[in-house]
């Protein structure tokens, strides 16, 4: 077992070195490499742009933290409403279903445009016209539609006998959801929830369309002032640094859940191959 995993490691290392080495040689020898390097990998531009761009990331962080809290709560409401049983509740189920279909169908950037420019354009008294506010609302509307489907998948994955048992103990439909079904469901869907959270973090750049100077807009301003694309590299790196640890963490959660469900018969960290799977590789 150990020896096999050692040899696998060597093979993996050699194969990786060959593949990336060949790719690197091809890219560096491309006819446009010099021009590409000047436009995308300009060290001086990078150093000059990075502090200004990173400083603007604060706007995105604020945006996705506020929105994520609202999304998690609102999406759960949608998922529960959609799963309610009984003919009298049909209109509610219908509304939830239409909402979810609608906001999954419309591109997020359009929702942001329509809300941030459209609603203030109505000039209703008392309605805020702050584009940041409408950015949060738009992202919440769009992402809660996705996230409610994740919740729903989790709720439906809980065996019906769980709910039946809860109801037989005298719990109402909502109580059974609240104390029995949803806690189990949420635990199961934490990885896909994190997945959508990552999507949300990246989609915060869409609020730049309505004038907010956040990380993407700041890099675009630098790019258009210098005719050089290196500032985008700065932005890409910021997201990589943010998202990759979270992606690995999500994979680790999935692997742990799998190991846990297989009844503890396999120790999740017993071999190299298993360890690689835990990190999603």
């Amino acid at each position, binding site marked *: 077992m150990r020896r096999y995993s050692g040899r696998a490691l060597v093979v993996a290392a050699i194969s990786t070195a060959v593949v990336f080495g060949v790719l690197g040689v091809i890219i560096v020898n491309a006819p446009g490499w010099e021009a590409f390097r*000047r436009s995308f990998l300009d060290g001086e531009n990078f150093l000059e742009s990075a502090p200004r761009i990173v400083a603007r990331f604060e706007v995105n962080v604020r945006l996705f933290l506020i929105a994520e809290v609202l999304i998690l709560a609102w999406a759960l409401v949608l998922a529960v409403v959609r799963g309610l049983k009984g003919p009298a509740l049909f209109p509610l189920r219908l509304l939830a279903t239409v909402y979810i279909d609608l906001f999954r169908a419309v591109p997020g950037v359009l929702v942001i*445009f329509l809300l*941030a420019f459209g609603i203030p*354009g109505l000039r209703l008294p008392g309605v805020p016209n702050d584009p940041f506010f409408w950015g949060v609302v738009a992202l919440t509307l769009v992402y809660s539609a996705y996230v409610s489907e994740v919740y729903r998948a989790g709720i439906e994955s809980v065996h019906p006998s769980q709910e039946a048992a809860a109801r037989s103990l005298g719990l109402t439909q909502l109580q059974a959801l609240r104390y029995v079904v949803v806690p189990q469901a949420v635990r199961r869907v934490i990885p896909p929830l994190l997945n959508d959270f990552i999507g949300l973090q990246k989609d915060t750049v869409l609020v730049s369309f309505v*004038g907010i100077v956040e990380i993407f807009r700041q890099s675009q301003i630098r790019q258009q*002032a210098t005719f050089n694309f290196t500032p985008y590299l700065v932005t890409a790196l910021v997201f990589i640094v943010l998202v990759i640890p979270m992606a690995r963490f999500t994979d680790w959660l999935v692997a742990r859940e799998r190991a846990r469900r297989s009844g503890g018969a396999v120790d999740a960290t017993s071999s190299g191959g298993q360890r690689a799977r835990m990190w999603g590789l």
Partner: protein
Amino acid sequence: MPKNIRLTTLPLALALLAACTAGGGSSPAASEAASGTAGADCTAESLETVADGRLTVSTSNPAFPPYVLAPEEGEQATEPWEFGDPTKGRGFEAAVAYAVAAELGFSTDAVDWIALPFENTFAPGEKDFDFALQQISYTEERAEVVDMSDGYYFANQALVSRSGTDLEGATSIDEVRAARLGVASSTTSLAYVEEVIQPEQDPMVYNDNDGAIAALQAEQVDGIVVDLPTAFFITAVQMEDGVVVGQFPGADEEEYFSLVLEKDSPLTDCVNQALATLSESGALDDLTQEWMSDSAGVPEIAP
């Protein structure tokens, strides 16, 4: 290919006139060109263009007046132009492009137009156009990445607001400073706002002028800064209650629009030579007068 080109003959006539009358003397914009172009062979046959024997010019789509005019009533629009149709040759930049083309020896039939977003004009790699023009202001940083010609228009920045706002009657930059300003990111207007106006609040920055206009209408900003000719188009066509508050004095360095060419393009010297000829003959002034004359008589916003 355009199916139905019906070019107004005036720009062409002017260009031909210019070609005949080109003489000595050198304007400031032309001096740089003149020094580097002695002996360059600038004829349609010998120029290395994207398509042999043809000149490919790029601008934005939609393009707007007064730079590119829409087809007249009854006239068929050319694909893919959504608003302004440069193939008709009307509008300042369309006319300048055809005038430069004529200087280089390309007939109007030998000019092809392509629609490219601003970013694509300076993305690395080979260009699909011989030159691009869409109110791109010259800056030294930009000129390191692409070739930028001598100026064909010298633009002032202007302030557009809604009628009925405090900003409407502003006469000095101090009065503008307290306002919430919007500006498009691809413009040098942004640099002007940050460096010269220095507003008290960070400006809002949009993809393009249309985003800034939408925000002005939604009352998310009090005023937007654009170049003066664009300000006229906005208030005349795009915004019912828009007003041109005034034009700003020029920045320290003179601001002008350049044609954009691929870095080290063999055409750059010839294009500069053509612009110099047009400038010396007065043809460029005539085109400016013809298409951009509204710019005169706008109150100045004092520093």
